[in-house]
């Protein structure tokens, strides 16, 4: 009966990334004999729901809370929870004051695909479409600016929430990370600049949508689509040539580590600390010179952090 209670709060529950994270946490909790509570915001950026969830989990007796922050507004609530002896670990998205951070570096994920796209394009002049998330999202900004930095364009640093743009980024549109909207965005970009040759996408559903748009326009051949996440479906798309390369991240790993840290804390009273980079790997079907990447096979094995 005295199972340690661990809370997991994700940004949403509609993104496979977070669904996998939850599954990973559940599996690990079962293995280690802990009780897992979960909650999430209604949409990305819904900090109010996350704060409420923190409070409710503390009331329910959770001793460790794992959270993928939707925004820094949760920090004070985290502090309050910590003052009651609760360990709070940030997964995926960093914020100040977390006891520990298990995450990938989204800026670096962006840099990797930027470098890949640059190399794959060769010397041709770049015409880039940027298919972003939605305004004001830190992860969106980090990936976007990271991509541009990797591509060798001038862009803001990792701390900025502003989306950079240069003459090479001929079109930018929001996708909400959603396939249908990704397709619409790409279609509109193609109207604006029919000769786009590089497409940055915020995630793989958006990439699939972009590919659909290109295919309908008969232009899927000469265009390089890059993306981030490395989910199983996304990696499969890399294999099919839909996506040229994607930066793979490992939500299952983050979650499992978080649950383990929670159990440790319950048993031994020792809090986790510091930043553990769960890693990011570039997955590409065709390797290009000068950029280190892994094959689709490796990506499939690792997708979401299966191993």
């Amino acid at each position, binding site marked *: 009966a005295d199972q340690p209670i661990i809370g997991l709060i994700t940004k949403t529950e509609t993104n496979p990334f977070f669904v996998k994270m939850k599954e990973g946490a559940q599996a690990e909790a079962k293995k280690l004999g802990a009780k897992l509570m979960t909650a999430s915001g209604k949409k990305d950026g819904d900090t109010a729901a996350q704060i409420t969830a923190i409070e409710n989990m503390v009331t329910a007796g959770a001793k460790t809370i794992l959270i993928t922050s939707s925004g820094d507004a949760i920090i004070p609530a985290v502090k309050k929870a910590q003052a009651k002896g609760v360990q709070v670990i940030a997964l995926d998205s960093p914020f100040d004051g977390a006891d520990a951070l298990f995450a990938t570096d989204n800026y670096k994920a962006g840099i990797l695909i930027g470098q890949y796209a640059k190399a794959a394009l060769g010397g041709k002049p770049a015409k880039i479409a940027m298919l972003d998330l939605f305004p004001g999202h830190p992860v969106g900004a980090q990936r976007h600016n990271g991509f541009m930095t990797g591509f060798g364009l001038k862009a803001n640093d990792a701390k900025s929430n502003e989306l950079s743009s240069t003459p090479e980024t001929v079109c*930018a549109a929001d996708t909400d990370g959603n396939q249908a909207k990704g397709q619409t965005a790409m279609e509109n970009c193609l109207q604006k600049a029919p000769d786009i040759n590089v497409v940055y996408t915020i995630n793989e559903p958006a990439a699939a949508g972009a590919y659909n748009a290109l295919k309908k326009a008969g232009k899927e051949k000469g265009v390089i689509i890059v993306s981030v996440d490395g989910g199983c479906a996304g990696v499969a798309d890399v294999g099919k040539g839909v996506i040229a390369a994607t930066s793979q991240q490992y939500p299952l790993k983050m979650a499992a580590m978080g649950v383990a840290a929670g159990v440790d804390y319950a048993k031994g009273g020792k809090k986790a600390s510091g930043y553990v980079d769960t890693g990011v790997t570039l997955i590409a079907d065709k390797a290009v010179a000068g950029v280190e990447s892994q094959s689709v096979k490796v990506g499939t094995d690792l997708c979401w952090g299966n191993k």
Partner: protein
Amino acid sequence: MNTLKDKLPPLSQLGPFIALAVACVVFGLTTDNFFTPANLALILQQVMVVGVIAIGQTLIILTAGIDLSCGMLMALGSIVMTKFAVEYGLPVPLAILCGVGVTTLFGLVNGLLVTRIKLPPFIVTLGTMNVAFAITQLYSDAQTVSNVPESMTWLGNTFGLGDTQFAYGVVLMVALYLGVWYWLRDTASGRHVYAVGNNPEATRLVGIPTDRVLLGVYVLAGVFYGIASLLTVARTSVGDPNAGQTENLDAITAVVLGGTSLFGGRGMVLGTLAGAIVVGVLRNGLTLMGVSSVYQVLITGILVILAVTVDQLSRKGGR
């Protein structure tokens, strides 16, 4: 007495079309690529899903209701039809039927709660929106369903008309609009939809089974959401559990922009089509102008208000 002037719709109903025309002229002047036939055909493709959802929404709003569940039902329907076809290997027509069946069933539930227990449509559909969302996520495991059979995405294919490629789905959408327009305008049951929204008590007293009309409208709306499910599958070639999150607001916006009153009984389904296209034109035109996304939101906000203002002023002029 029966002059041409009498036959034309009154100026008050032209508002949404005027707003549409104004938006088009503005984008035509500020961008190079807006007024190409290809781009215009593209906009139609982009609005076809919301457009069909908005038909159902129009019907419900005409009865003085509102449907928040429409987008989520569309997502659920698309997951059901793709999963049934891909995972259980059901023949495509049957799988489509199952998807449409599910959305229709939800429409029936909405309708029963509204007519039998007399709950406010806002709350009923808020509830079913949540339920449909949860079922979609649970059933799909939040995973996109891909490898959808070709025949299920046929409506997304295009045919050439001159130089321009039109999607079959757009033709379907336009056909549905024309059909519903005819139904609402020229048949008894269509007029009863207006009557129920205009004065439900009077409609009951003249001996029209108002509950049956209402129930029929909700069920029919469910059917339209099911068709929208098929269209979204056709358009994206996948079953996407994340679809439908913004479609309810978009659809209501299209209806209201189209001049239908949220108080029921007044409006025209073709106005909704214009409203849906206005939304699509704004999104397309602003991207073509290279407006960055925060500014797009800002400008959309202002333009939406301007569009109804044009509408409103043209109505006053028309009196």
